[in-house]
């Protein structure tokens, strides 16, 4: 397996597929004979050479916050920093504290924090050692929905504010859609496939494109707002999307999700429809989905999207690879 040393790489797969084990091996918490691991220009494991975890410049966020219960929040944060050579301190303690919004918790003991607060401290603690690689093992899994919503924006901002590559273990498609740039799909201890997230989600040979909630991700930038109709325009490689107004500055990058079941296909550009998001597309590939449906992979200006239509429609419209069509997206969700 080889992943880019930038952005967020998600290790994704069902429970027990080896995601956590792989992450622990990257950290050096597990040792497998004959393994090979290289991060950037650093060899962490090769043959008899094995760099122990405390000599690897990484940060690790465990599923449970695992704060040191005998130390205050501040001393938890300082634990790793104290052990760094001065030259290695690129992320300042203050920066980590501000990024995770934990200023007001510093003098408390971990026992007096909520689950969400504990996990935020754990993330700040991992960042404060200025890691060259940040490993996160389902940091949201132990939290309820509200706490997840509380932390997700912080994790998203890490990625934008600090240029640290992240490997993120998850079995939640929703988290992956929010965070990942790159996806590694694991199955029964093996890497099934890996690649850019937008490509992986729409590959018809992988299970991701076949669930009832299969979707495509679209990277876009805010192009402008329509104050009269209270709409926001977003430009992507495939064309301009129109969504309900969001208070975002023009030029900011956003991610959209377009569910396969919300996309319908027509042969002619439709007039007299209430749907605003209509794009010319080419059918790339299609595959039957059960008895009654077909999943269609479309290329919209070089950008992959999915449509779920009935087998009858596919036959009536004579859908086949290479055929130009129009994709109409009934609804589009803004992720960030």
């Amino acid at each position, binding site marked *: 397996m080889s992943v880019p040393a930038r952005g967020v790489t998600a290790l994704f797969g069902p429970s027990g597929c080896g995601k956590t084990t792989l992450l622990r091996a990257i950290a050096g918490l597990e040792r497998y004979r004959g393994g090979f691991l290289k991060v950037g220009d650093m060899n962490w494991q090769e043959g008899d050479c094995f760099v122990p975890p*405390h000599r690897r410049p990484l940060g690790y966020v465990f599923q449970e916050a695992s704060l040191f219960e005998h130390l205050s929040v501040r001393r938890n944060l300082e634990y*790793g920093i104290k052990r760094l050579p001065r030259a290695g301190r690129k992320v300042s303690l203050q920066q980590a504290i501000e990024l995770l919004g934990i200023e007001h918790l510093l003098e408390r003991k971990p*026992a007096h924090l909520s689950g969400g607060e504990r996990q935020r401290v754990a993330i700040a603690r991992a960042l404060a050692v200025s890691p060259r690689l940040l490993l996160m093992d389902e940091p949201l899994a132990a939290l309820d929905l509200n706490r997840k919503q509380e932390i997700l924006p912080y994790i998203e901002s890490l990625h934008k504010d600090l240029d640290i590559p992240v490997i993120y273990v998850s079995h939640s498609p929703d988290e992956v859609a929010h965070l990942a740039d790159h996806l590694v799909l694991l199955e029964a201890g093996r890497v099934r496939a890996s690649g850019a997230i937008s490509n992986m989600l729409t590959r018809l040979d992988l299970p991701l494109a076949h669930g009832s909630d299969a979707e495509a991700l679209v990277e876009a930038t805010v192009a402008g707002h329509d104050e009269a109709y209270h709409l926001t325009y977003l430009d992507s490689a495939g064309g301009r999307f129109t969504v309900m107004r969001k208070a975002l500055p023009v030029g900011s990058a956003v991610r959209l999700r377009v569910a396969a079941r919300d996309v319908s296909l027509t042969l002619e550009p439709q007039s007299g429809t209430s749907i605003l998001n209509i794009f010319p597309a080419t059918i790339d590939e299609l595959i039957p989905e059960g008895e009654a449906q077909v999943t269609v992979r479309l290329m919209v200006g070089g950008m992959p999207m999915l449509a779920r239509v009935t087998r009858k429609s596919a036959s009536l419209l004579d859908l086949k690879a290479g055929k130009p069509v129009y994709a109409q997206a009934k609804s589009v969700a803004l992720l960030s």
Partner: protein
Amino acid sequence: MLSGSDLTALAVTLKLALLSTLILLLLGTPLAWWMARTRWRFKFLLEAVIALPLVLPPTVLGFYLLVALGPHGPVGGLMEWLGARSLAFTFTGLVIGSVFYSMPFVVQPLQDAFSAVGRRPLEVAATLRASPLDRFFTVAIPLARPGFFTAAVLGFAHTVGEFGVVLMIGGNIPGETQVLSIAIYDHVEGLEYVQAHWLSGGLLLMSFLMLIAVYALNRRFSVVRP
């Protein structure tokens, strides 16, 4: 009240208990740490050996120690060969006996405490650049602190209370091996009940206070969340 010889016995007892507890903490900490973390298949054998003094009559332990430490035993013989005197009926022999006798009272609480700490905090410390020794001193020991307190108090109290082992390998030499429990026995033999009452009551009160401290503190520490 207390006679001069009683005070001497008290001093010997306290010195013995303090020294034994100190040695037990120094030896027991690495042993308990290893036992809490090893996946060695035959660990249960070692655990059974350490727990023996809990069920063995102290006289049996004392007898074997006497044989080993005496001039004809392996340890005592070696000492005589080296030009020292054998360890039977000496304060040093008493300390060795106490260390064996009170071992489970120190090792078991420490082992439980280290087990309760678990691997996770140490793994976290490893990812925060702490070396194995650093992790042991800055994470494992502080988190196992209630276990250290329990181990120290139980080890101390149990050593103060020993009788059979002392009698077998220490004898009854005032100022060297005569401890309180034996002094009490002597008083009773000599029908000096007032003296026996003073010493017995004192020991009872001290033991009770130490146990109260252990249980009260453990209650407070048990609320620590994972």
